[in-house]
């Protein structure tokens, strides 16, 4: 029996920027047609990983299988299946039409060019009549971002990689960008790989979110990462301290230097401080935001504990019953054994 290989299968990938930064990913895969989100702090390696997946950068070692085949930066047929939108997109010093049509022109596809450009601009909410002839310097930040996205969407790539696409755009542009990429995935089966700090926006596109931290991909879902350091306190337990001084207890990691991961669904939210519970960890926090996790009936609750963000997940019913609102003081409760190690 033969099963379809993942679109990307990355093994033993190492990429170094001098002495200071190393991206080290032992194993990482992305399924065709999926939407994968990457979150994590600046300088953690998200952009480098995206550039490697876009075949713009070449890792020092490791193997990238694309569709089950080994490939590289030089392989034009494969790398042309992937298009990346940089965090700060660059528009050519030409008209909007020329910018959007460029990718098709370099592929020698000049048929129905005007119609294709019109459609691509329409997908990102720009009126072709109004924008097509405009020069690059007559666009706002959000419009430029959308023109750059249209220049990628017109190519109907198999993989669309977006690096912080909403970092410098207004709410309306962020919404239009979201609609455009969801439509591209629905219509053309485009695989989406998106790095963003905007968790709400990212959650509205995909629930498959992976955390990139200090050059490692941690977890295959939205996990809360507790970095440590973890100090042994006896009886097989270790303790770390959150920025506001609250302790977190876990069963000790198998290896030193590992990071603790807490699944948001393992966190229980309580309005009152619970007493006499089997769970070791009771953290006081403030509700920062609530957002629907797509149409799953689950609500993502973002909590803050002295600058440290904790994500918990509750059902819509629970959120309504508890009358959870931003600004409310709550208690986040989870077991020491629910902390996993990576």
């Amino acid at each position, binding site marked *: 029996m033969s099963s379809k290989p993942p679109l990307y299968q990355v093994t033993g990938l190492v990429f170094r920027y001098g002495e200071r930064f190393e991206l080290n990913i032992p194993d990482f895969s992305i399924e065709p047609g999926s939407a994968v989100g990457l979150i994590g702090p600046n300088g953690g390696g998200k952009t480098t990983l995206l550039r490697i997946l876009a075949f713009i950068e070449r890792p020092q070692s490791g193997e990238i299988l694309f569709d089950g085949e080994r490939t590289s930066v030089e392989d034009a047929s494969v790398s042309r299946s992937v298009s990346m939108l940089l965090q700060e*997109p660059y528009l050519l010093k030409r008209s909007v039409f020329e910018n959007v049509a460029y990718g098709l022109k370099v592929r020698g596809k000049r048929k129905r060019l005007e119609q294709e450009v019109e459609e691509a601009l329409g997908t990102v909410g720009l009126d072709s009549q109004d924008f097509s002839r405009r020069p690059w310097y007559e666009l706002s930040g959000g419009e430029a971002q959308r023109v750059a996205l249209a220049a990628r969407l017109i*190519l109907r790539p198999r993989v669309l990689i977006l690096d912080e696409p909403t970092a410098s755009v207004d709410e309306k542009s962020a919404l239009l960008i979201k609609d455009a990429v969801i439509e591209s995935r629905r219509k053309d089966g485009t695989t989406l790989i998106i790095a963003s700090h905007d968790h709400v926006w990212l959650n509205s596109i995909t629930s498959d979110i992976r955390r990139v931290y200090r050059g490692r991909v941690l977890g295959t879902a939205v996990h809360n990462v507790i970095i440590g350091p973890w100090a042994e306190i006896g009886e097989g337990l270790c303790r770390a301290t959150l920025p506001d001084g609250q302790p977190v207890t876990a069963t000790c990691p198998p290896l030193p230097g590992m990071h603790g991961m807490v699944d948001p669904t393992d966190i229980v939210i309580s309005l009152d401080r619970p007493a006499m519970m089997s769970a070791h960890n009771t953290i006081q926090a403030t509700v920062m935001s609530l957002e629907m996790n797509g149409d799953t009936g689950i609500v993502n609750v973002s909590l803050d504990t002295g600058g440290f963000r904790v994500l918990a997940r509750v059902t819509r019913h629970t959120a309504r019953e508890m009358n959870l609102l931003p600004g409310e003081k709550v208690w986040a409760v989870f077991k020491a054994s629910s902390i996993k190690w990576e």
Partner: protein
Amino acid sequence: MGYISEGFLRAFELLVSLEAETCSAIITTISVSSMSMAASLVIGIPTGFALGYFTFPAKRQVRAVVDTLLALPTVVVGLIVYAFISNRGPYGNLELLYTQPGIAIAQTLLVVPIVISLTATAVEGLDRRLKPTLHALGARGAQIALTSLMEARYAVLIAAITAYGRAISEVGVSMIIGGNIKWHTRTITTAIALETGKGEFGMAIALGIVLLLLAFLVNGSLAVLRKRS
């Protein structure tokens, strides 16, 4: 002071009446510098692009030589070219001395480092996002190179105009190679030098005004292009 105002009056008369000798110097200047510009652009743009775009051993040293040649004195260029194209020189048989093509060759040597250096600077100064963007859009090899040159087009035009400004205003090359022959190789600058020496301020001022107008035109174009780039 009277002779200066008389000079301006005479200059006005010469320009309004399109006096033949004045016009001949202007036409010679434009003709010679256009020839040298065409040649220096053909040589300078590809060379400058290669110098700015590609990485190769001794690139820094080559760049240092080109940048040093920017300050090449016109009389030295004139002297070198004279040595090669005079009757006793290796290319004497081409009979280029005291001809407009002869001046154009020497001017090309004078301005080609400007085109090379400014083009290389323009290409090196291209936005660092350009290459990954073109790659992400599917461009490869020559397509990336050509688009990069197109992106630098305003800066390359600035290089060309700067070089043109240098060509029309130089005097050493035109004097040594052209010989300042009336109706033939006399340019605006050599004519000004001669007429001033003769005390004919009218014509010198008239030609000076034309040269200044050309310089304003060149600088005006530069200002517009700098804004666009």
